[in-house]
């Protein structure tokens, strides 16, 4: 029940904020619906449904079963994957596609999959080289070259 209350409260807050913002944008100009009209209706509808769910969950008051979610067991792995992607996004322009790809794959294989260094480094190098050749050279996708811009 506690979990459902938290989720419904999130939706209610979101609905409250968005309906105020939509109202500020303007609901109508004369006979014409304004830019805030559509999001206002959607935000109000979200609020009504969230309130309905909240009341229902309080009335039923069934106990939470957090173990069903299974988040606790994999939270660390999930955080590592997200951290790797965030680092990739912020370092991409600086280090370039090739280096970032190598580091990302090596990080995932070493930290998440716990592979040995030879496997980690060789797989990361293979992925970086192949993807550079495929996307950069063959498909001519404009990917940042960063540190290696003088070479490739």
């Amino acid at each position, binding site marked *: 029940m506690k*979990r459902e209350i938290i*989720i419904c409260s999130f*939706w209610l807050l979101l609905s409250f904020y*968005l309906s105020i*913002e939509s109202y500020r*944008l303007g609901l*109508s100009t*004369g*006979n*014409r*619906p*304004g*830019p*805030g*009209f*559509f*999001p206002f209706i*959607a*935000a109000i*509808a*979200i609020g009504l*449904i*969230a309130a*309905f*769910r909240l009341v229902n969950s309080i009335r039923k008051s069934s106990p939470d079963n957090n173990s069903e*979610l*299974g*988040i606790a*067991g*994999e939270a660390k*792995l*999930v955080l590592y*994957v*997200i951290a*790797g*992607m*965030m680092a*990739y*996004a*912020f370092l*991409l*322009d600086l280090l370039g596609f090739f280096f970032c*790809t190598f580091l*990302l*794959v090596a990080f*995932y*294989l070493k930290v*998440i*999959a716990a*592979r040995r260094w030879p496997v980690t480094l060789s*797989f990361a190098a293979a*992925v970086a080289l192949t*993807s550079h050749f495929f*996307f950069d050279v063959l*498909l*001519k*996708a*404009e*990917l940042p070259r960063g540190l290696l811009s003088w070479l490739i």
Partner: protein
Amino acid sequence: MDTLHSLAQGILTAASPLNLLYGFVGVLLGTLVGVLPGLGPAGAIALLLPLALHAPPLAYLIMLFGITYGAQYGGSTTSILVNIPGEASSVITCLDGYAMARQGRAGPALGIAAFGSFIGGTISIFGLAYLAPALAEFGLHFGPPEYAGLMLFGLTALVYLAHGPMDKALLMALFGSLLASVGLDPVTGQPRFTFDILVLRDGVGLTPVVIGLFGVSEVLVNLRTQAGEVFQKTIKGLLPTLQDWKDSALPITRGTILGFLVGAIPGLNVVIATFAAYAVEKKISKHPEKFGRGAIEGVAAPETANNAASCSGWIPLLSLGLPTGSVTSLIFGALLIHGLAPGPLFIKNSPEVFWGVLGSMVIGNVLLLILNLPLIGLWIKVLQVPYFFLFPLIILFGIIGAYTTSGNTGDVVIMIIFGVVGYLMKKFAYEPAPMVLGLVIGPLLETAIRRSMIMSKGHVGIFFQRPIAAFFMGAAALMLLSPLLTRRRLGHDIIEKLEEQ
């Protein structure tokens, strides 16, 4: 006769070397993602959306369509060999397919699944070729109020038939529509919910959102997945025996008809078609006790139905411009990227694309039949690849896909955010499909509603005074409100019971 002539022209167009190559890549990729648990056709299409900027429109669409029906073939392989459905539409095949594999009859099970899929898929394409243009003719009478009604109807149908609680699905659809409001207002050009962030001025892009929701979130959920253990590693005798054919002929026929009809109805999907086909066969069988213990009818009917439904599922999108789920929403997005407006005028304005795609489906089904049976050994090897080698690649393709859309790392961050959102949605049992549909049709729905209200000088009565619009609005209201009165959704308890089985 005109239809057959146009379809023949479409087949010729699809048979050109470039289109054939893209089609081949599409069905191969589709089978691969169907085989691999954890990355479905929606994820694969999401990862390939950025390619739309570089590839020729028809060839690119042929590839995307190939992925969708290729995945249906691939999904059955894992169901039969490993008892793990690669796709939700292959869940029911596990029951008898895996039982057949345990009896040493994996070959005939895979064979009848492939032949059934081919027959169901091909016949369904002909149905699509006849029905879609007729429906599009009807759609030509639509104005903004009718479009608004149609889109609300499509959105509500998806919400009504969602697996989980309807209110949760409705929340997702509304949230998707709200996300679609981010960016410049389509009528006044005023910025909405952009928070002075440059990347949000163009709106929340479909590509990074769907890559996050379907690609990244799948990786996060499956991080602890182990490689599949294949029960029967050497497959012999892929061609079903005469007795197998006798047992399967009628289930294949019924599966084709049922799959086609279910797939064509907005909101119903391939999964429902397979469960319904299985239920019908079990109900009318003289030996229902054999089902679940290796009855070939239990493989033939659902496998035929899933391909038939996956083809007829395109009718609402190609004839009326109505996406009915996540995959059709993504294809809708891909069509928009190429400047091809899906809707009643699509077939009239872009006949070469419509008939070319249909032609490619005919060729694709033949390709899949030729390719898949000999390639089963390869798919078995793919199944044994450890997941820790696969997930960095999926993440990498996702990042490249999001980045190349705009050349901006902001889109990569959006992808990551929606990866986390998708992960939490899965954990809290919120479905992504209504959200994606809301995001895709949100701007169209908003424009249609606002245009209608400009026409009526601000009166909402316009949606109820015109018969077609009133029909769609009434049907949508009925679907939304009836569960409040009856405390049940039509057919939903049957679907739940079958899924439990």
